[in-house]
C-alpha cells in the first residue's frame, strides 16, 4: 500500500532490475509456455476420461489414479524404469569418469579419442536404435552370428524377458558415456595443476592423487552429471519404443513409464489415464531428485571461491 519502499530504490537499481528481468525473459517465457503450462494441463487432464480428438472430456475425479494403483502393468513399469536407471547411471558415470581421466592426460590422438567417444551423443537415437536392432536380431543379427561361429548358443536379445531390459540399458550406457565424459573433462580441467605438483613432491602416486585430489574436486560436476543422468534414465522412451513392440514377449518386463504413458495416450487413446501415469513419473522423479539434492551435502565438495 505505502509507496515507501519504492522511494528508497535508486534509479540505477531499478534499471538494473528491469534489465535483469529483460535478460531472463526469453528463458522464462519458454519455460512457462513449453513446460510449466503443459504440466498443469496434464495434471488437469488426469482427472478426465478423454474423448476423441480432445473433445468431450468427462470429469471422473480420481478414477484414473484409482485405476493406476490397481494396474499391475503400471507397477511393472515403475520397477522396470527404476531398474533401468540403476543399470545405466552408475555404470555409465563410472565409464565416463574413467575415459575422462584417461583422456585428460597428454596422450597421442587425444582429440580423436574424444571425438570417437562423443559420436554416439551426436547420432540420432532412432537411427542408432535401428542399427542396434540389426545387431541384436535373433535370426541373422551380427552378435548372434558371431556367437554361433564361436559355438556359443545364441541369445534372444530383444525378446527374452530376462535379457531385453539389459540389452536396452547397454544402448543407454553406450549413448550417454560421451556426453558425461565431456562434462567431466571440463570439470577436471578446472582443478588447479598446483595441487598435483604439490602432492607429487610429497610423494603421492597416481592412484592416490585420483582419490585424494581428483575425486573430491570433481564432485560438483559429478553431482550435476548424476542428477541429470538419473532424470534422463527415468524418462527412457525412444530406444524401448523402437525395440519392443506391445506384442513382444519381453514387453511386461521392459516397458518404461513413459512408454506406458505413450501407449495409453496414443495407442489406446486414453489421454486421461496416460496423464495420470505421467504425473506418477513426475512424483517419482521429484522424490529421487530431492533425495539427491539433500544427500549432496554429505559428498559434494565445493572449492572455496577467490
Amino acid at each position, binding site marked *: 500500500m505505502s509507496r515507501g519502499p519504492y522511494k528508497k530504490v535508486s534509479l540505477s537499481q531499478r534499471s538494473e532490475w528491469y534489465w535483469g528481468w529483460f535478460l531472463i525473459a526469453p528463458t522464462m517465457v519458454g519455460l512457462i509456455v*513449453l*513446460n510449466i503450462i503443459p504440466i498443469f*494441463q496434464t495434471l488437469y487432464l488426469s482427472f478426465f476420461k478423454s474423448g476423441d480428438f480432445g473433445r468431450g472430456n468427462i470429469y471422473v475425479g480420481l478414477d484414473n489414479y484409482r485405476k493406476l494403483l490397481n494396474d499391475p502393468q503400471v507397477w511393472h513399469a515403475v520397477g522396470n524404469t527404476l531398474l533401468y536407471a540403476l543399470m545405466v547411471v552408475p555404470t555409465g558415470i563410472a565409464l565416463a569418469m574413467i575415459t575422462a581421466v584417461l583422456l585428460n592426460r597428454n596422450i597421442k590422438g587425444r582429440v580423436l579419442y574424444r571425438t570417437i567417444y562423443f559420436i554416439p551423443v551426436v547420432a540420432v537415437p532412432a537411427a542408432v536404435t535401428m542399427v542396434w536392432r540389426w545387431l541384436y536380431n535373433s535370426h541373422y543379427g551380427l552378435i548372434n552370428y558371431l556367437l554361433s561361429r564361436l559355438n556359443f548358443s545364441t541369445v534372444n536379445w530383444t525378446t527374452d524377458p530376462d535379457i531385453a531390459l539389459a540389452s536396452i540399458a547397454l544402448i543407454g550406457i553406450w549413448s550417454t558415456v560421451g556426453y558425461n565424459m565431456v562434462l567431466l573433462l571440463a570439470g577436471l580441467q578446472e582443478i588447479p595443476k598446483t595441487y598435483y605438483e604439490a602432492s607429487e613432491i610429497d610423494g603421492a602416486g597416481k592412484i592416490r592423487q585420483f582419490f585424494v585430489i581428483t575425486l573430491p574436486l570433481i564432485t560438483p560436476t559429478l553431482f550435476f552429471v548424476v542428477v541429470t543422468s538419473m*532424470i534422463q534414465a527415468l524418462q527412457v522412451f525412444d530406444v524401448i519404443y523402437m525395440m519392443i*513392440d506391445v*506384442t513382444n514377449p519381453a514387453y511386461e518386463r521392459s516397458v518404461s513409464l513413459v512408454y506406458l504413458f505413450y501407449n495409453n495416450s496414443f495407442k489406446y487413446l486414453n489421454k486421461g489415464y496416460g496423464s495420470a501415469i505421467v504425473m506418477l513419473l513426475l512424483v517419482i*522423479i521429484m522424490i529421487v531428485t530431492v533425495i539427491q539434492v539433500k544427500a549432496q551435502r554429505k559428498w559434494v565438495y565445493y572449492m572455496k571461491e577467490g
Partner: protein
Amino acid sequence: MKKTGMSMILALVLMLSALTACSGNENKSASETPGGQSVSSSEASPSPDNVASGGEAVTLRFALWDSNQAKGLRKMADEFEGANPGIKINMEVTGWSDYWTMLEASATGGSLPDVFWMHSNEIYRYASNGMLLDLTDRINASDKVDLSKFPEGLVKIYNFEGKQYAVPKDFDTIGLWYNKTLFDQANLKYPDESWTWDDLYNAAKVLTKDGVYGFLAALHNQEGYYNFIYQNGGTVITEDKRSGYDDPKTIEALEFYVNFVREGLSPQVFGDAERADLIANGKVAMGLFGSWNLTGFTENEFMAKNFDVAVLPKKVKQASIYNGLGYAIAHNTKHPEEAWKFVEYLGSKEGQERQAELGIAISAYEGAANLWVSSNPTFNIQKFVDMVQYGVIRPYSNTTIIWEDKVNEALKPAFTGDMSVEEAAKNAAKVMNESLAEEK
C-alpha cells in the same frame, strides 16, 4: 546453504525442461461443423482454370502409410497434376502405426492433411466426430464416381449413418506364399485350392529342416490367425458386438495355429517388420501375407525367383480376410473442390484402372482387378482375386484399434508357451469384452 538452494532450483529447472508432457490440446474448433464445406468453398476459387491462369497453385497434402504403394501413386499424382494445372499434390508417407498417431494429433490440432487414406479400424472415430468431409452429395452429383461399381461390403465400411465419408480405393486379401524351390527339393505338390489344414501341417513338417522353418505362424491377426479362425467357422466379433475368442471353434483354430510354434515348425515372431524379413531371407518356407506386399516381394530378387502364391488352405470352409481402404477428405480442408477433384479421379473408372495397371493395389472398381493381375507376371496373383468370393471382411467395431492390440497382448503368452491357448483366448475375450463395453 546458498549453494544447496541454487542447485535445488537448477535441478528443478532441469526436471521441468526434460519433462515435456503431452498437453491436452483443447480443440478450439468446436464450432466447426462437418458440413462446413459451403463456407470454405467460397474461399476456394470457382474453377481450377482460373487458378492456373492466376498462377496461384493449390497444394494438396495427401497422406498415406504404405511406402510400397507410394511410388506408383506418385506417378498417378504426377499425371493428375499434368491434367489439372494449378493443383499440386504433396505426398506424406508415414509408417502404419505412426500414421494413426500422426493423424490423431493433426485432427486434434486442426491440421489434417487434405486427402488421406482411411481404414475400417478407424473410420468410426473419424466419421462420428465430424473429422471427415461428407462426400454423399458430391458422389451423387459426380458422373465419374459410381459406388454401385464397387463391392457393397467395402462401400458400407465407409458409410456412417447414411453418409458416405470415403471413396473405396482398393481391396486386399491374404495369400499363402510358398517357396517353390524348397517344395521341389522335397518332392511336394504345390499348395492349391484343394489344400486343407492337414496338408499345410504335413508340408510344414517336411519343410522344416536345415535352419528353415516350414511355416510362419507369427503373432499377427490379419495376416495370421484371423484367417484360420474364420476357416474353422469361428469368429472374432459376433453380430451383437461380443468377443468371439471364447467360441470353442475360435479356440480350436488358435490351437492349430499356435501349435506350429509349439512343435518348432515356426519361429516365435512377434514384431510386424520381422515377418517380411524372415520370408525374404529364406528362413521360412511358407507364410501368410496380404496382397499389398506384392511390390516389395516382386522387387526382392530372392522372392521373385523362388516364391509363388496360392489360396489359403481350408478347414470347414475356405476363407481369407478381406478389407479395403478408402480415400477421405478432411472436414476443414481449405480446398474442398480441388481435394474432391483428386479423390474423384482416384475413384473414377480411369483412376482405378490406372492404379491396377501400375500394380499399386487391387482396384476395387468392377473389372479393374483383371488389369492388376496382368500387371505382375512374376507371381500367380490371380489367386488374390479368386479369394474375394469367400473373403471375410476384416472384423471391426467402433474401437477396433484398442481391442485388437489388447487381444494381441493377451494371446502373447500362448505363443511363448507360458499359458495354454484356451486360457489365453479366454483372457483375450475378457479384455475385448471390457473394451467393447466402453463403446457408446
